[in-house]
């Protein structure tokens, strides 16, 4: 088992290299001089050249890549061109905020999805099944950033019961587990959870339905096992596939929260990315993308390994 995990980790190394190359290429193949984000366009040439030398923009690209890679591997992600703070610090705090939102959204979405999906699979009445199918269809079809705006309109603008943006009340930094902060979390959580809700509900419903039709369930019923106990076995059987899908969705949430964070001005990695793109703050852009991609890769790897452990049918090693 450990061998399998180690082998997967080693396989990750060339991919990680490719990812770093891609991230580097992305921001450097962009049109426009990165320097132009720092200095006004009419700056004297000597100043521009000096700054180029300072940031290393005058070296050939492969050299820039290797320098950047070397520095990054030590943990130093550079300094933000816009704020001057260390990129690692900025990304770190933003990442924490994104995680808070992601955790609450996944908890909400997955719990609801398992309940809905299982009920739909078990339901004798077609109405329940139809209803759940419709909910999951809406979940995957609705543009979540539009839903976010609609939620703001309804609850913040019209009803005025929930705050329209931000992570906490005015002049508060960081996040604490109090009423005001939770109020700020409600709308973004709902908006963020619709897509995972839709996808996972569909998966749970179809896997549980498939498991229910298997002969071992009939055998258990014939043995006289209680329904609640059978449910436990059914869920255990459906778990590997569902966990894999959940893992993927969780990963997508963290990497793809940018739209929701923009609507709510939630200070997470997505919001950071957004502002970095428009300020053309390359170090932040590279650092954030790298961290998010790296996290996504590790998450996928963990989900893979967990799935291998949980599903005895998959060959290991």
């Amino acid at each position, binding site marked *: 088992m450990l*061998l399998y995990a*180690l*082998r997967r980790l*080693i*396989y990750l190394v060339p991919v990680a290299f490719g990812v770093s190359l891609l991230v580097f290429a992305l921001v450097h193949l962009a049109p426009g001089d990165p320097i132009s984000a720092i200095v006004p366009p009419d700056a004297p040439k000597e100043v521009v050249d000096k700054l180029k030398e300072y940031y290393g923009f005058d070296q050939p690209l492969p050299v820039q890549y290797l320098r950047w890679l070397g520095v990054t591997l030590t943990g130093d992600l550079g300094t933000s061109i816009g704020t001057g703070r260390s990129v690692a610090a900025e990304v770190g705090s933003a990442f924490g905020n994104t995680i808070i939102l992601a955790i609450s959204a996944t908890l909400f979405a997955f719990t609801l999805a398992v309940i809905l999906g299982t009920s739909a699979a078990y339901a004798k009445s077609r109405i329940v099944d139809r209803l759940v199918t419709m909910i999951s269809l809406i979940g995957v079809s609705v543009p979540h950033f539009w839903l976010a705006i609609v939620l703001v309109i309804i609850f913040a603008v019209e009803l005025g019961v929930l705050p329209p943006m931000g992570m906490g009340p005015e002049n508060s930094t960081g996040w604490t587990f109090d009423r005001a902060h939770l109020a700020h979390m409600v709308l973004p959580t709902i908006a963020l959870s619709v897509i995972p809700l839709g996808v996972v509900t569909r998966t749970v419903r179809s896997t549980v339905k498939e498991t229910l039709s298997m002969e071992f369930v009939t055998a258990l019923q014939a043995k006289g096992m209680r329904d609640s106990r059978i449910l436990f076995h059914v869920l255990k059987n459906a778990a590997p596939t569902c966990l894999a899908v959940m893992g993927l969705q969780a990963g997508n949430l963290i990497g793809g929260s940018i739209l929701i964070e923009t609507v709510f001005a939630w200070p997470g990695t997505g919001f950071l990315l957004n502002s970095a793109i428009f300020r053309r703050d390359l170090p932040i852009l590279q650092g954030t993308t790298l961290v998010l991609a790296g996290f996504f890769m590790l998450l996928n790897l963990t989900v893979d390994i967990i799935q291998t452990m949980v599903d005895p049918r998959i060959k290991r*090693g």
Partner: protein
Amino acid sequence: MDTLLPIQDRGGPAQPLLLATGLRKHFPVAGGLLGRTTKVVRAVDDLTLSVAKGETLGVVGESGCGKSTVARLLIRLLKPDKGTMVLDGDPVDEPHGITVNELRRQVQMVFQDSYASLNPRLTIAETLAFAPRAHGLPAAEARERVRDLLTKVGLDPASYSTRYPHELSGGQRQRVNIARALALRPRLIILDEAVSALDKSVEAQVLNMLVDLKTELDLTYVFISHDLNVVQYLSDRVLVMYLGKIVELGPVEAIYGNPQHPYTRALLSARPSMDPRKRTHEAPIQGDPPNPIDPPSGCRFRTRCPFAEDVCARVEPPLADTKFQAVACHMRVAGSGHSKAMAA
């Protein structure tokens, strides 16, 4: 492109139609830290067989003994790691011989799973016409050929040409598979468990059809099966395989009437019989089939053989001729060192 006439015989009746020498096929198993090949499945090891013109060579053995690998090697769906093949005097896949494509014109195969061996998207006619068309036969002649083939296997062309595989029963599908194998007018047909999946009554019909076709079309068969009774009914000579090696080879009467190898004897006596007077006197085969990844040293059967001795672990028994057949067992080789062997 030739016009798909039947290939002429060369070399006369004495020359074997197919001679395979020293065939070896190992499959790598990924393992270890970097996914490198650490182990191999030794599916077929140093196998030599010959098929005479017009005979039916039966190949028997348990699952996992390598029979299907041999089948695929003979038709070159798999490339052997080592070994040569000669088709009616022409070496295969060598500078002065015939190409693999030319081999395939003369050697064809019928697969076991009648459903998976037919493309569900094509009609029967399209499936049968595929090979001839691929070899350049014009459409009209191909249609004619399809009609001819269907009639030969006992299916009415008018009703079956436009049907799809899922509309046919298992027996009908196997007839189509056999028809497909005949499409290029081959000389040798390899039947890999071709009737194993059929109901007994259907199996009997298909077997009789195979016998008739053989005489009518001057065919040679290699018939692979785990069903000993069917092999006895159909074959002229029988080859018994165990874990990638031949353990016994000879005429069907000799193998079934006087089996020499312990494995063959155990196999044959394990057949259930309707006759209450037939009792089993042989020792049953003990243990589980060993792993082809790490076959036992020396004689591969020794771990399950009630007569195994020291020499069996040290020396691999060669396939040696006895009076009527060839056996790979130290007990039958004079002077081998086995206590039951005759003195040299």
